[in-house]
């Protein structure tokens, strides 16, 4: 067939994979991320309790063999809540990145492709957005939309698509100067086709790197908003919301906040490590053109 899988594998992935496997921090990030993914996917099996199972007789118990991360003020098992919370964190992170890229990438393509006043307008909007403190703007948007996880995703996406536009625009500008774009125009390709079939595939590597690097900030923003009470509403086991609930008992029962905090940190770290590694691995290929 046309897309011969074996060829694809032997030509490209092997080289990238080989470089990636040599990248120790990258592999560490991947392992950490796989662990998070694993607990998120198998939450139903590995969680000893339901995340909303209240047990008034065992409130604020310290970590023990029965509750390895302890229990919170309502007697819920923190480990179970964290395991279910991984689903929310990862799903939200992914969703935010998809929405951000969905807004940012086409705008960057359009700005870089058409140039001139279109570019100026898009760049101005991007710069304006960039100048805002993201959390404040996100707070304002959530206040307008009302609390809830969906609205948090919308708010965070709206405040942080600007890097995509910048990166894609810059890359588009450099690609537009290449001769194969003129050649594409010379054979009668339409602007849309040139943008999506010629320019976009050539900008994929930086987009992938940017996506992995923006997932942690997306997770941090959404947990921050949840912490402030705008995000997931109880009893949703959102890590940010758990931190918020735990803060009242920080001296009496520190495990209520330590474990969600630890997992937020580890998840963000895993994406960061992975993103850095992908950048290192994909960049030399970019330089070769």
């Amino acid at each position, binding site marked *: 067939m046309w897309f011969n899988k074996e060829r694809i594998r032997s030509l490209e992935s092997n080289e990238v994979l080989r470089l990636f496997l040599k990248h120790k921090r990258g592999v560490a990030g991947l392992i950490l991320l796989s662990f998070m993914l694993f607990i998120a996917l198998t939450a139903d099996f590995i969680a000893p309790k339901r995340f909303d199972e209240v047990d008034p007789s065992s409130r604020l118990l310290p970590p023990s063999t029965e509750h390895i991360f302890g229990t919170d003020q309502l007697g819920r098992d923190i480990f179970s809540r964290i395991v279910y919370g991984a689903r929310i964190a990862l799903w939200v992170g992914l969703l935010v990145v998809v929405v951000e890229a969905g807004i940012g990438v086409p705008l960057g393509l359009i700005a870089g492709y058409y140039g001139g006043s279109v570019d100026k307008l898009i760049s101005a909007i991007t710069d304006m957005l960039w100048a805002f403190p993201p959390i404040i703007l996100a707070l304002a948007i959530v206040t307008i939309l009302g609390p809830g996880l969906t609205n948090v995703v919308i708010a965070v996406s709206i405040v942080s698509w600007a890097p995509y536009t910048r990166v894609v625009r810059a890359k588009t500008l450099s690609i537009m100067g290449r001769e194969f774009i003129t050649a594409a125009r010379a054979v009668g390709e339409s602007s849309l086709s040139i943008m999506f079939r*010629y320019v976009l595939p050539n900008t994929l590597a930086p987009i992938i790197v940017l996506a992995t690097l923006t997932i942690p900030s997306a997770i941090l923003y959404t947990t921050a908003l949840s912490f402030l009470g705008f995000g997931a509403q109880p009893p949703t086991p959102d890590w940010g919301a758990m931190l918020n609930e735990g803060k009242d008992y920080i001296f009496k029962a520190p495990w209520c906040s330590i474990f969600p905090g630890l997992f937020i940190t580890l998840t963000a770290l895993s994406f960061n490590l992975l993103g850095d590694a992908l950048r290192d691995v994909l960049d030399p290929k970019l330089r070769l053109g």
Partner: protein
Amino acid sequence: MRVPEVLLNVRDLRICYETSRGCVKAVEGVSLEVYAGETFCLVGETGCGKSTLALAIPRLLPPNARILSGSILFKGVDLLRVSDRKLQELRGKEIAMIFQNPMTSLNPVHRVGFQVAEVPVTHFKMSWREALATAVRQLGRVGIADPDLRSRDYPHTFSGGMKQRSMIAMMTTCKPSLLIADEPTTALDVTIQAQILKLLHELKNEYGLTLLLITHNFGIVAEVCDRVGVMYAGKIVEVADVTEVFEAPLHPYTKGLIDCVVARRKSKSRLNQIPGTPPSLLNPPTGCRFHPRCAYVTYECVREEPRLIEVRKNHLVACHNYEKVGGVSWSS
């Protein structure tokens, strides 16, 4: 004698590039006729505006270029005034273009066969299966060995010559009437150059193409051209049949260029050269633009710009003193 059909008619075309230092007049009042079925060569030094002229035909000029005046009639349609949509239809189907640097002319992220197949899919609404088969056939036609296998490869696995062949395949799948080749062999080594030229010549005869060849190499001109247009500093200074240009050039610049061709040296004398350098197009000299470098310069040349006139049948020249130039050439 049959009157040849004019396929491409460029009238008084003026193009400038807007730069921070002012307006660079790359093409200044060029008029040109290309007949159907011929190979027309545009010759000139680097920076004389020949590539600009070539890019202007399918309207592929960079954004800082301004077309100040003129018209480009292709089969009676003015390409400078036609809608973008219509032009898009013409590009690749009726007018195709091959570029100087084959190394960067193919999209690095798509397979070669896919890129060639895209053209008939775009223009003839051909099915992908059929288009890919066409692409393989066309790649075979332009001399890619194992076209079936190689069409599935990415451009970086191709050599320069193979990339240029692929470009030619891409540009000729729709059998356009006009093929513009902007220095198609400059980036290739000499043996490949000859093969590519031969290929272009064959395809021209096979498909009945009209070839507009841009080059600075008189060897190429002698080999494949029917008629020649010589450009200097944004203007056409001489247009004639190829034999006439070589045997009796009437413009001192053309004569100078031909004298520069190494193979034409009679003895081990110093290689001939035209003194000086081409003028800045920001601020070209008065009168005839060639006068600061010309051996035949007279007072008139400095004062008045010569017009392109037909001094002999099918031989146009823009020089006040063409009679002197022609005379010297014949006697030597």
